[in-house]
């Protein structure tokens, strides 16, 4: 039942975007999100969408994975669309049914918000599709490093994230084993209403937690044995280095920003 659960949605590859420094990708994603907010019209959105789709195409990842992330927010998108459609005030009435009227302004606003939401999700999707969780962690640690002056625990947080990633498959296996052991003793995880099923999980969760604590203790000992003493004075085997392609990516994102601002200025559509 727990088999085949993938962690994150990273697709290994060797494209230009895959090879970018994770810090570049993180910053570019933040910039992309900002650009989505900067855009005032559909022409800008079209440009951003073209940019994201082109990026995705260049990685060799199937486009459908870009949109997979939309599923959980589909409801929010529809809800926002409906809200704007019916409650945006406007003068040009397109359709009127009793007290409910749909105006041209409402329709524009509703579509605008929906497209904006979709673009936000899709462009951040690009980051997680092309960056391994480890690279992401390294990138975050490196970006938050400067904040250590104000006692922000950048190294500790990154270490916690990578240990969590390391132990997800291990704990998954363990949960599977415990589940089978409980089933062999007649436990029933599949029938009954929500409450009953939640209750059935208790005998699964208790041993899982106890096991996790035991593991944590042993891991801490093993880390001590290998001279771990926090982030201070630590070096890394893999150094993150900005390369030519990182500058190129930065330029591309800046160009996109400039184009979107220009479209805003000329009030294109």
């Amino acid at each position, binding site marked *: 039942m727990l088999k085949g659960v993938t962690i994150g949605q990273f697709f290994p590859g060797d494209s230009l975007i895959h090879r970018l420094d994770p810090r570049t990708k993180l910053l570019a994603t933040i910039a992309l999100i900002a650009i989505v907010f900067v855009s005032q019209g559909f022409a800008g959105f079209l440009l951003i969408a073209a940019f994201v789709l082109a990026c995705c195409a260049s990685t060799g990842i199937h486009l459908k994975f870009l949109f997979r992330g939309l599923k959980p927010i589909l409801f929010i998108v529809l809800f926002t669309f409906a809200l704007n459609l019916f409650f945006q005030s406007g003068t040009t009435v397109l359709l009127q049914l009793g007290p409910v009227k749909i105006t041209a302004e409402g329709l524009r606003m509703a579509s605008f918000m929906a497209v904006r939401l979709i673009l936000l999700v899709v462009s951040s999707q690009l980051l997680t599709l092309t960056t391994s*969780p*480890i690279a992401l962690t390294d990138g975050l640690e490196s970006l938050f490093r400067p904040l250590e002056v104000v006692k922000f625990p950048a190294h500790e947080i990154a270490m916690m994230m990578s240990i969590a990633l390391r132990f997800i*498959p291990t704990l998954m296996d363990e949960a599977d084993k415990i589940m089978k052991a409980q089933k062999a003793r007649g436990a029933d995880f599949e029938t009954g209403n929500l409450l009953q099923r939640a209750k059935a999980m208790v005998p699964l969760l208790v041993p899982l937690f106890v096991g996790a604590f035991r593991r944590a203790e*042993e*891991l801490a000992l*093993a880390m001590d*044995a*290998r*001279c771990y003493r926090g982030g201070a004075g630590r070096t890394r085997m*893999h150094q993150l280095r900005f390369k030519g392609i990182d500058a190129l990516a930065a330029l591309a994102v800046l160009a996109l920003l400039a184009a979107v601002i220009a479209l805003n200025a000329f009030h294109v559509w």
Partner: protein
Amino acid sequence: MSNPIIEAHNVCFQYEDAAAPAVKDVSLTVEAGEFVAILGRNGSGKSTFAKLLNALLLPTGGTLRVNGLEARTEDDCYEVRRSCGMVFQNPDNQIVATIVEEDCAFGLENLGTPPEEIRRRVDEALLDVGMAEQAGASPSMLSGGQKQRVAVAGVLAMRPRIIVFDESTAMLDPVGRRDVFELARRLNREEGITIVWITHFMEEAALADRLLVMDRGRVALAGAPREVFAQVDRIMKLGLDVPEMMKLAARLRRAGVKLPEGIMTVDEMAVELCRLK
């Protein structure tokens, strides 16, 4: 020629809130390049002793010098931990990173080694334990024996003089067990690394240079494996087993068959039996 690398004088250790000490008056020396096995049933203090060697625990009494250093200050502790590496029992719970080579680099990263040097030593260590091909793999895809070899590589990269294996084969299948044991023997033979092999497998202990049997925190028996295992009755009394052939030899001797001391393997037994008239 004596070149002691571990010197323990009346070492004691008592856990807080424990009624009795876990390690009591242990005095022993281990020569550089020796392969020493420590046997003992659960709770005999052998794992506690291993943690003392690695300065994960500090003695509450007596003195313990590892590689000429007594762990008094925090910096000494780290130096002891570097020179005396440790491989634990559970292969899953000692791998820190999500990629084999990253895990191998963990110790060196902690020591603040320059990146190029880490790269070089990690590659060497992985090659040495035969895991170079899996350098980019995720540890969760490896077998237990392979995980233990990665753990050994992580220790090796730190260039230790001693490696303590704390029941490192206990959770492995027979193939993995033999692999890891052979690896330890090879590191001992070819690279001169001192090995302290803690186990409850008699067959492994029988192949060590020297064997210590611990019981209730003390060293109960010590000597060459042949001499130690010859004391079949005492070993059984300590709740331990002896290799099957030793038991057989003891029974045959009791039945009046004249067999020499120190038969441990099936082959040796066969040879001796054929010599009988």
